[in-house]
């Protein structure tokens, strides 16, 4: 009883000891904040990767692909139909996307994924990423969504984009007409020597785009990542970031890829139908979706059968599971049935293994470092406890004279350490959780106070800082901090216990 009473009194009267646990509090709070933010980023990232990749991917080993996607999909449904909720065939190749800017073509290496939107929507939340389905913030104003979410995915332009395209086509037609007139006039004046600049631009640019009726879409249709279509730049004077649209829905771009079989360059002009934003910069600045038929045709992935029908090829099948827990079972069945010579069967996690592992390693190293901080705090407690034991030498002597055992005296200081640890860790958990809860307000405040954006959307793609509080982690961190406080009090407590009462009481 006296132990509890004394601990409680020491806790209330020794502010120096409370000061020593501030470092524990800060350490615990930091660990909780860092872990929550990292877990938030991690889970957002995983959700996005999984959204783009789908749950299980069956890839062909050859870039030529395998013929008969329907047959393979049917086979998958037969094998594991009860586990899956969707499956779609895609062709994935490397390509170059070039758009015209200031009269010049700007090329970008991209990953071109040819999809059938209807079935792609079954395996991943593509609709969540397409921007025409979501309201946008444009130069500070909110622009309402152009399509309702009930509208199925397709390769058509929104009316606004269509209008813009027609307007543009009309403008090009007019300039072309004007240019023709001017050239005709100049030819009349100078004979046949023509301006080489006028010629190339005439051939390469507008001519290719105005081949067809004004405003008619190209056969190739694309969804382009926002990282490709736009770029953010900060005005050096006003410090305001501004989005520049390099590619807008309705624009035509040129896609260069290579054919199946012996690789040979192939290109086609395609109309950008929509832009998408996943929040993963890797996807947003690298990924381009295109319509499956067009790419199959361009790459020569169509086999014309003797009976007049045609069989098309695919390079991968994306499968969505009803419950991701079934993945190992499904993988096992598929691996047994799709020969490893031709097919690679993987979960999205296995495909992104190194990236996910890197994130895990990062977070565990960070945890170790932060825990070292708490350990440092532990040494602070150790030092202050030694001081308290010295200060309390006489009281320890009194207690022993009154019959307290060594273990009783020791447990006073151990309990004191435990209580301090609990107070420190408790306060740390409180501070940490509050910080996480108000993290966006805090970020705004710091941005306001320092004038420097702490969490620029340009870099991180998230408007708000994503957080995820894992109760298990919080418990572990708090428990670890309490343990360190107790361990730090062991040595001083032993010292106190081994004081001989006479030594402690001597005053001559």
């Amino acid at each position: 009883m006296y132990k509890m009473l004394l601990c409680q009194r020491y806790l209330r009267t020794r502010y120096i000891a409370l000061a020593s646990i501030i470092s524990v509090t800060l350490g615990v709070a930091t660990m909780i904040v860092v872990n929550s933010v990292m877990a938030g980023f991690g889970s957002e990232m995983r959700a996005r990767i999984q959204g783009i990749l789908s749950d299980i991917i069956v890839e062909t080993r050859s870039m030529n692909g395998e013929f008969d996607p329907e047959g393979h999909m049917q086979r998958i449904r037969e094998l594991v139909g009860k586990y899956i909720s969707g499956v779609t065939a895609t062709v994935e190749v490397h390509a170059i996307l070039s758009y015209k800017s200031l009269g010049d073509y700007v090329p970008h290496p991209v990953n071109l994924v040819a999809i059938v939107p209807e079935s792609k929507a079954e395996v991943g939340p593509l609709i969540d990423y397409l921007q025409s389905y979501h309201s946008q913030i444009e130069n500070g104003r909110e622009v309402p969504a152009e399509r309702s979410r009930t509208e199925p995915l397709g390769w058509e332009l929104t009316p606004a984009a269509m209008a813009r395209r027609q307007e543009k086509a009309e403008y090009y037609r007019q300039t072309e007409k004007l240019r023709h007139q001017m050239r005709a006039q100049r030819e009349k004046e100078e004979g046949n020597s023509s301006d080489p600049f006028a010629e190339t631009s005439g051939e390469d640019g507008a001519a290719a785009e105005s081949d067809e009726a004004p405003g008619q879409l190209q056969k190739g249709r694309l969804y382009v990542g926002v990282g490709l279509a736009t770029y953010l730049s900060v005005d050096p004077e006003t410090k305001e970031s501004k989005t520049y649209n390099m590619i807008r829905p309705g624009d035509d771009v040129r896609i260069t890829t290579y054919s199946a079989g012996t690789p040979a360059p192939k290109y086609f002009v395609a109309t950008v139908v929509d832009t998408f934003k996943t929040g993963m910069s890797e996807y947003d600045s690298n990924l381009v979706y295109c319509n499956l038929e067009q790419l199959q045709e361009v790459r020569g992935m169509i086999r014309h059968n003797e009976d007049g029908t045609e069989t098309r090829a695919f390079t991968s099948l994306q499968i969505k599971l009803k419950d991701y827990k079934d993945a190992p079972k499904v993988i096992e069945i598929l691996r047994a049935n799709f020969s490893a010579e031709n097919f690679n069967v993987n979960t999205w996690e296995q495909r992104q293994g190194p990236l996910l592992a890197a994130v895990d390693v990062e977070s565990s190293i960070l945890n170790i470092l932060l825990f070292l901080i708490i350990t440092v705090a532990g040494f602070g407690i150790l030092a202050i406890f030694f001081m308290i034991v010295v200060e309390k030498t006489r009281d320890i002597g009194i207690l022993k004279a009154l019959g307290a055992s060594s273990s009783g005296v020791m447990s006073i200081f151990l309990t004191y350490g435990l209580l301090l640890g609990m107070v420190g860790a408790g306060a740390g958990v409180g501070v940490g959780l509050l910080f996480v809860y108000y993290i966006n307000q805090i970020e705004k405040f710091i941005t306001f106070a320092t004038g420097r954006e702490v969490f620029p959307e340009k870099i991180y793609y998230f408007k708000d800082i994503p957080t995820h509080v894992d109760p298990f982690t919080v418990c572990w961190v708090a428990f670890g901090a309490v343990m360190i406080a107790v361990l730090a009090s062991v040595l001083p407590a032993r010292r106190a216990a081994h004081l001989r009462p006479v030594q402690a009481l001597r005053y001559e």
Partner: protein
Amino acid sequence: MSTTIMTSDNPLLRESIAMPVPHVAALAVQKAYRKGEHSVPVLHGVDISVRKAEFLSIIGQSGSGKSTLMHLIGLLDTPDVGEVQLEGQRIDDLPVRTRDELRNRVFGFVFQFYHLLPELSLMENVLTPLMIRHSIWNYWTRRREFQDRAKAMIDRVGLGHRLTHKPSELSGGEMQRAAIARALVAQPEILLADEPTGNLDAKTGREIIDLMARLNEREQLTIIMVTHDKSIAAEAHRTVRLCEGRIETLTDAA
């Protein structure tokens, strides 16, 4: 009063023949302290025994070993040579736990500097020996009884109006009375007082001695008091003078 206590060369033999078993006795105890490399002898074979309900005072100059002797008797320290007996049983070589228990139940201590715990109120200070004696659960269930006991004891030493005061808010005399209340609340058999008046003025010191004398009389409490003040020592039944670690004279008071 008894006479030839310390005359025999063999105390054990003497006891068995001549004397009833003394309440507490130190037999030929020697003690030396280490100070750096040197061993400083403090007690050179001291024999002392106290009967039940006797009030013994030990006087001597500082450094004469009187406090050390009292610490040895009170099991705060162990003798290098010799033994300490309680009712004829050797107690200085008992296991640590048992000695802790004896300190708690048999001995009550009063110190020159009162030695109250500064964080606790007077009431809590007085309750400390009971808290130490009983487990948390035991204490909690009987706390009313203990509190009443402590309160009665505090009333007896005349501090009933200062229950919740911290030691720092009490005067020296009040602190010493509180210390006596703390020593007595555990109902000890032997009270060991180490210069109980050393830090008090003459009048307050006199009050404390009177209190102890009363307790000795009424409760049949065995008291061993260390002091260097002859007039205070004269209150005791018997006085032992220590000089440089040896018993010098024995006088019988009153």
